[in-house]
């Protein structure tokens, strides 16, 4: 009786160690191989000129109307960002559509995923509302639907008409660079960033023209030219998230 017992115990020990090591190696290997967006094709980016932005909030209202967002949620808040001289500076903050997005890494059901053109999409049918992405986002760009939004949208129709379905209660939502306008515009042969119908609503409505949108992979697009001509910065670039929203600083002269 003693002999088989010893063998079984040894066997079990070796198996346990082996299985754990194998599983651990798999996990580590996969954790390193995260999926940034492929280069080539289109890479949408947004440029916001802080020397022009006056904090009017038209982009907030247009976004709310076109994406049918509840008044309690803002996908694109306009924040106060200090002063230059005696002029207050504002910073509109859409989703950064990071190329190394923490929200995509942590979503347990892959509801948050990359599109080949760089937009971080939300699959609202798949989201289980665990809010891990909300905790993981360094920019606070995600909002959870604590309540169902059933009332009429106060921003409609003055600021636009809804182009996407309303999200149900219990899912996390965020800005998606108005992919619905981009896709439709491309199908109709328009250029996003140039023709208003193919460009995100916030970019179109800005009364002072502080926002720009376009394809980074196209050297002739307005965003590529702007970023070449002027110094820009991105929020918390040190974290390595690779945001795709660039800001042009307001200086003493330009403000």
């Amino acid at each position, binding site marked *: 009786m003693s002999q088989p017992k010893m063998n079984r115990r040894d066997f079990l020990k070796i198996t*346990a160690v082996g299985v*754990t090591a194998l599983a651990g190696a798999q996990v580590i290997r996969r954790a390193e191989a995260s999926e940034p967006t492929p280069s080539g094709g289109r890479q949408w980016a947004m440029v916001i000129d802080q020397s022009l932005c006056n904090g009017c909030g038209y982009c907030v209202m247009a976004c709310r109307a076109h994406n049918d967002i509840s008044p309690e949620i803002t996908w694109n808040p306009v924040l106060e960002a200090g002063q230059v001289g005696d002029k207050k500076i504002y*910073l509109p903050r859409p989703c950064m559509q990071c190329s190394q997005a923490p929200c995509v890494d*942590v979503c*347990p059901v892959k509801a948050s995923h990359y599109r080949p053109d760089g937009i971080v999409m939300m699959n609202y049918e798949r989201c*289980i509302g665990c809010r891990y992405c909300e905790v993981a986002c360094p920019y606070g760009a995600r*909002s959870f639907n604590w309540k169902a939004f059933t009332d009429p949208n106060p921003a409609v129709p003055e600021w636009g008409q809804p182009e996407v379905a309303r999200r149900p209660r219990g899912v996390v939502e965020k800005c998606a660079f108005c992919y619905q306008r981009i896709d439709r515009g491309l199908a109709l042969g328009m250029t996003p960033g140039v023709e208003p119908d193919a460009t995100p609503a916030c970019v179109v409505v800005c009364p002072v023209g502080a926002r720009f949108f376009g394809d980074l992979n196209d050297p002739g697009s307005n965003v590529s030219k702007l970023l070449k001509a002027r110094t820009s910065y991105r*929020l918390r670039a040190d974290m390595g998230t690779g945001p795709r929203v660039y800001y042009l600083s307001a200086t003493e002269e330009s403000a």
Partner: protein
Amino acid sequence: MKIRLKLSKLSPWLAWLIGLGVVIAAGVGAGLIVFWKGLSVTNLTDLIPWGLWITIDLSSIAVSAGAFSLCAAVYLLGLKRFQPVARTATFIGLIGYSMALLTLLMDIGRPDRFWHAVVYWNKHSLLWEVTMCITLYLAVLALESMPIFAQFEWLKMRWPKLAGKMSHLHHYAPYLAVVGLGLSMLHQSSLGAVYGVLKARPFWYRPDVSVLFIISAVAGGMSLTVFASMLSARLTRRARVDDSLLERVAYFIGWTLVLYLYFRFWDALSMTYTYQPGRTEGLQLLTRGPLSFNFWAGEILLGIVAPMVLLLYRPTRTSQLWRMLALLMVVGGVVAYRWDTNISGLMIVLSYLPGEPIVGYTHYFPSLIEVLSGAGVVAYGLLAFSLGVRYLKVVNCQEAEEKVDVREKRLAEPATTD
């Protein structure tokens, strides 16, 4: 006069059941309100999306860690004499994981989509890995608990063949222990890594959070098992324990606490050097700020240091009362650690505007609905364990399968009421 007579006829067991029943009823009511009205009935916000329920979920999984550690000890390290304690731990594990799943069901925004994590995979996500491991481990625990359920008298009478088959599963316990060990090592530490991999939260972003989670889980899980066994043995004759076994386990817990304290010490000390926005404020919240009572009293003094001393010092370890007190303190410390970890990282609001990151603070206190539903889940756990002690002989120092026949004869005698 009449009322007093009625109360005196109420046995402690019945009073306990009624008390738990009231709390469970309140919890069920609160849970239904959550399913009906959504998460707006909680005090959770977009800044603090995880609160009391996540803490209960993490703590339930942590204190269920006695199952994998004791089963590993019994079946993989050959310490066969601890098998009765492993049996209790397995049952507690089953209850704990079911409590965690109940809490999670309430906490996710779409409970009707709870199955998505099993069907839609994101292999990079730690939370997915946790969900898969918990689902698989629950199956393992269920299989490991089948021999326990086979002890149910009604089952043995009604379906003796099924009970026999369930009891036979004990033969596979070593294999289940291996699988359980692997799964548990993965998800107990992954639960810590869920916090530890978030660059956005500097206070959480450390590699040792996962290590702290698994060590505290092992300590807390074994403590709850021993404490529950000892408490049941004091309260009812249906629970019988071998005190020498429990004393050995308590000794092991004491040394686990030493290891835990070592890691906690260096973890905290390393954060005091060099100001880092978000991280330094987090430590200050714990050591000097609103969480300082939880940290110093709940986590360190009562959670680690006092029980460590009590469990390593023989006179207090062998004393029933002091040992039970120490074990309860360990469990409390484990819960406090998870609450503090969750809330401290979320309370700090780090600005992402250009320039030096400005740190703001937000606040959270659970709402009544959260407290009631959480209490309901805990009461369910207590009820399940109590029923296990009474009907399934969960706390029993005799070997389960070898002495089945002998125990059958003993139970044929008229049972005395407790």
